[in-house]
């Protein structure tokens, strides 16, 4: 029944493509406005309209933005990288145990852990700050990293556990008979076949932690705050003239890493989310 193949300019095709184009525009135009504005001079912004091309393309907004949030950018890197790596690794180990080395009550344990995925940020603020205080980690980067790791474990464990559930148990049994121990099986057999789900975890956790504002504003103070908090402080300054080009450039700087991570690892993200059984 392929004789009546749909041509791209048929009415239904036009409707579909038209809708998709509108949807693209809805998402992309704000980005375009930000980009255009960030390269305009303050005079330009005052005289032109939002979508007009800059009269003179200038990087001054970007330089000024980097001057004010650059230090916080590195704070965010220092918070995000260890938190993402640690939560992914521990999540992988958790998932490995919960799928391949089930123990009495492991299903209940997993169920309770899943509950963590649905906990709103606000509910953990007080208990977490209390705990950090007891640990002597209040208002430190380490403390903030710890909060991110613990909060992220529910998600990373869920990802890895479900991924490993589709791996045949016989693989682990074969490795045990071959003489491999708990960590050898994990490191040599399961981790090498986990690339798609590792990527999913990395992207997910990176986006969550990099974009986090609430934990950052609560658990970090002063110079140790992440870029999201710095951006907020910059934009909400009530003194002097509003420098929209600087605001926009700073927002772009804050948003670029997550964009970059998705562009680089995005293909694994889709593959990992849709991965079925892994067969030998």
């Amino acid at each position, binding site marked *: 029944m392929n004789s009546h193949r749909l041509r791209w300019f048929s009415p239904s095709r036009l409707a579909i493509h038209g809708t998709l184009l509108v949807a693209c525009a809805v998402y992309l135009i704000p980005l375009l406005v930000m980009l255009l504005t960030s390269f305009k001079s303050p005079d330009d912004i005052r005289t032109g309209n939002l979508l007009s091309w800059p009269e003179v393309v200038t990087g001054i907004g970007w330089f000024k933005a980097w001057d004010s949030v650059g230090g916080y950018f590195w704070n965010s890197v220092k918070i995000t990288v260890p938190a993402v790596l640690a939560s992914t690794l521990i999540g992988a180990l958790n998932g490995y145990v919960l799928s391949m080395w089930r123990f009495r009550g492991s299903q209940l344990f997993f169920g309770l852990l899943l509950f963590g995925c649905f906990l709103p940020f606000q509910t953990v603020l007080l208990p977490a700050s209390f705990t950090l205080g007891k640990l002597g980690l209040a208002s430190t980067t380490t403390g903030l990293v710890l909060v991110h790791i613990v909060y992220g474990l529910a998600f990373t464990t869920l990802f890895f556990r479900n991924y490993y559930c589709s791996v*045949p148990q016989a693989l682990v049994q074969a490795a*045990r*008979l071959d003489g*491999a121990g708990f960590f*050898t099986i994990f490191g*040599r*057999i399961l981790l090498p*076949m986990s690339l798609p789900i590792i990527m999913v975890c990395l992207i997910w956790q990176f986006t969550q932690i990099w974009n986090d504002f609430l934990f950052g504003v609560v658990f970090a103070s002063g110079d140790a705050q992440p870029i999201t908090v710095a951006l907020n402080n910059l934009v909400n300054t009530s003194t002097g003239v509003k420098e929209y080009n600087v605001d926009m450039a700073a927002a772009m700087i804050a948003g670029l890493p997550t964009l970059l991570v998705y562009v680089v690892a995005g293909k694994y993200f889709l593959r990992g989310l849709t991965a079925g059984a892994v*067969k*030998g």
Partner: protein
Amino acid sequence: MARLELRNVNKRYGSGLPDTLKSIDLAIDSGEFLILVGPSGCGKSTLMNCIAGLEEISGGEILVDGVDISGMSPKDRDIAMVFQSYALYPTMSVRDNIAFGLKIRKLPQAAIDEEVARVARLLQIEHLLGRKPAQLSGGQQQRVAMGRALARRPRIYLFDEPLSNLDAKLRVEMRTEIKLMHQRLKTTTVYVTHDQIEAMTLGDKVAVMKDGIVQQFGTPQQIYNDPANQFVASFIGSPPMNFIPAQLVRQEGQTMALLDSGQERCALPVTAGEEWLGREVILGIRPEQIIQGSAQGNGLPAITAQVEVTEPTGPDLLVFVTLNGTKVCCRLAPDVRCQIGDSLRLQLDPARVLLFDAGTGERLDRAAVAPQHEHVA
């Protein structure tokens, strides 16, 4: 190679649950090929996992060369296993799959290379060593899985339904290869299958299992010719043994089983205790033990029956008739000419007919021998 002995092995999963394995007693000598056969859920795979150490037993002993290994972890038991799903490590090449167990045991690289080469030559998979499992066909994966087991030269090999994922033709080929391999290497092997042909053709000893109990343990011939009960008799043999309900009566000073084809009646002399007279028993007759009646009398009891269905299989002609209200399959020579509706003269050898208790399925005419005491003559 080693001698394997299971003594009173029990396995239960929870205190409230029924036993999965009940008092398993089996023993095979070094170099022997043991088949565990039975329907799904009979506990044969559980028993194999217990031998491998993947599951712990709840009671009893597993002895290898007289040493109890039931408390050891799998890696210390020196046992290799071929899995039904092959369980090849997907991210490793064939070479690394075979070498994995040797690397874990920290053999020198030269010894590993040598062993991989030996196994690859043995299984004719040398040209596949660089490939990943996903690039292999089912039969090739099967070979690699066997190679991985062979490479470690363990004391005992376990095969868990290794052929069930292959297509019919390849299955027959690999069956012959496994047999050849065993004849050459003389490895002590335990092989789990639900396929009775594999059980008959491969095994030195066969243990037929049902509901966690070994129904019979013996050579394939003993299992086939002298089954302990109706379950074993029905499980082994294709087409399966005919089970015909019949009355036992006393005629001319002899115990006779009465057969009725609707056209004719006949009495079959059988051996059974006095207490069975007048009661209904089950006659067990294999399809090939029913022959076409010959013109010259050979003294065997004969009965005429109406042909209901014929199934020419090539080497045989399967003819179905009704005796005592039960459909009975007869395996006749392919050149027998008969049409549906014909009357066919059939003869049975009473000496080969088996008698079963209609209630319990136990044999009436078989001396109660404890299965584990049966040995190859």
